[in-house]
């Protein structure tokens, strides 16, 4: 069985093996193999191409940008997504503006170990996808399955533009697959993870699995939720979302991010402005609570959306 984390390691291994332009740069990723072991043994297999960096997130991304200008395809690891704020300037002001300003694309991949885990606390739990999606010039992806973690990372390396790769730490170890895919949906296409006639749930990342669990709970009562896994939040596959809402007439958006200006806000804005007539009732959303992510597992498990809070919201949406 291949875990989500191992899929990320194997995708990097394949990228290094097949493209001599690829190199990895980040903290503790060399001999140590990374804080989560996402680069385990890669420095031995690819000498000189898996490079330990000082604790300098800004310089790590800045160096990736220069390397990309010179024709390389760097994959950089932020040890936790939370620390990417220290690299915000290089990501949003340099990488994201380079193509528009100069006509020279910036093919870097910034890996962000994202989202909450039990005991992670305020600085090792954040979901940054909406922050990066705000700036033009970035592709922002949020794989929710082992297969997508593998294929989307490999695709990300081939994209000539900067990609923020939000891999979810909660899925690292317990999400498993029998094998890795040969083909996949391209980045930018959402996936109907579960078909249902009664309401559409639009979600991404670890919340896909909470939403699927909520759907199983409602199925016991005879209601079928359709679950859309966005896969990439930018570009956002509005067509697939609208087509689903056209079938169900009801929309619930679920995200582990904070509510203000997040992916749920964007999806609801788009459906409301482009598909208002498709809606039978006002759209709803479930987000994390609007506080820092708490450390204690008892607080954290209530801070984030869960299958039961999603199911409760779905019942309100369905007026049952």
């Amino acid at each position, binding site marked *: 069985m291949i875990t989500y984390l191992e899929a990320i390691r194997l995708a990097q291994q394949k990228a290094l093996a097949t493209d001599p332009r690829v190199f990895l740069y980040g903290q503790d990723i060399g001999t140590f193999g990374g804080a989560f072991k996402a680069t385990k043994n890669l420095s031995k297999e690819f000498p000189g191409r898996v490079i330990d960096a000082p604790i300098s997130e*800004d310089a790590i991304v800045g*160096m990736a*940008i*220069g390397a990309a200008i010179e024709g390389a395809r760097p994959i950089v690891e932020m040890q936790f997504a939370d620390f990417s704020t220290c690299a915000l300037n290089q990501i949003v002001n340099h990488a*994201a503006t380079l193509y*528009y300003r100069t006509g020279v694309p910036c093919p870097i991949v910034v890996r962000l170990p994202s989202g909450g885990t039990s005991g992670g606390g305020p600085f090792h739990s954040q979901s940054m996808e909406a922050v990066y999606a705000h700036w033009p010039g970035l592709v922002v992806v949020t794989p929710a399955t082992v297969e997508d973690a593998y294929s989307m990372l490999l695709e990300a390396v081939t994209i000539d533009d900067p990609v923020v790769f939000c891999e979810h730490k909660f899925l690292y170890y317990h999400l498993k697959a029998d094998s890795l895919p040969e083909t996949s949906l391209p980045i930018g296409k959402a996936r109907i993870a579960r078909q249902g006639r009664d309401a559409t749930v639009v979600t991404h990342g670890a919340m896909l699995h909470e939403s699927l669990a909520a759907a199983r709970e409602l199925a016991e009562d005879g209601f079928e939720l359709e679950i859309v896994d966005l896969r990439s939040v930018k570009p956002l596959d509005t*067509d697939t979302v609208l087509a689903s809402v056209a079938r169900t007439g009801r929309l619930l958006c679920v995200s582990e991010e904070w509510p203000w200006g997040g992916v749920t806000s964007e999806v609801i804005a788009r459906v409301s402005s482009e598909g208002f007539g498709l809606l039978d009732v006002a759209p709803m959303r479930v987000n994390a609570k609007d506080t820092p992510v708490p450390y204690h597992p008892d607080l954290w498990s209530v801070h984030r959306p869960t299958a039961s809070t999603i199911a409760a919201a779905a019942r309100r949406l369905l007026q049952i």
Partner: protein
Amino acid sequence: MARSLYKTRNMSKPSEPVTEPDYLKAYRIMLTSRIVEEKLANLYRAGMIKGGVFLGRGQEALSVSVGIHLHRGDIFAPLIRDQAGRLAFGDTVLDTLRTYLGSQLGSMRGRDGNIHRGRPREGYYAMISHLGAMIPAVAGGLLAKRLAGEQGFVGATCIGDGGTSTGAFHEGLNAAAVDGLPLVVVVANNQYAYSTPNSRQYACADLVDKAAGYGVAGHKADGTNLLDCLQTLRKAVSAARVGGGPQLVVANLLRLVGHGEHDDFSYLDKKLKQSPVGSDCLLLAEQHIIAQGWKNIGELAEWKRETEDEVNATADRVRREPTPDPEEDDWEALSRAEYREQHTAP
């Protein structure tokens, strides 16, 4: 170990001496830079510039000395006051004026302006405004060249006294030092960061002292003296080129104009202006050329006239060029069409 090798290798090989042709070539670029910038200031006052104008008056000797020692295959990320270094590296009067006047034909096509111009594919990086950010970018370009097996290349970038206070300066120089990259960081200590004097910018005795803290070589130059700048940069660039790792060059000089043409420079300490650091490097270079007997006053005046004619003719040409058409811009921030948003609001 490779790391200690970079730091301990003997770099005592003397660099080639600066010759009369070297000096005269550098002077002509300084002169062109000064004349272009005077034209830009006039155009600004006439309301013809799109956005601001930021001049490098007083910093030409240092700046030209950086650009003139770089070759094709090297990387250069100039900063605000590097018109002279840009011209020395291969930028043109034409593209300078196009970018300031907002011509569609300029390298930035109206999407960015003034000093934020470059041609990254040619090793000429386009600065962003966030100070220090270009240091790791150049370091990364150098790392990629090393990984690709290239040899004999260097990268240089310029910054001011104010920029040395940023986190990006620290992170970039430290990371470059850890990997022993052939990076030359040139600090123009021009005494002011916008209006902030050095006394409110740093507390060390001399900015070059920072070199020891990063484990890189440090060099000092008199930024008003072209010969000293040329000799110092020649030494620093060649040390980086042959494996000496990062080099930090600090030159003292005075910015002889405000931060931008909108700035009245009211904060200038008159004593600084009257001190040696307040000398005009271009005038000193002219005096040196005449004292050495390399050219006479008449010949230098002829150079000036020729350059003014060229700059004026180029400006007249650029003013007739098309400006960017909002209908023609594709308004796309990604190079790959399949990854662009399809449903953004108009």
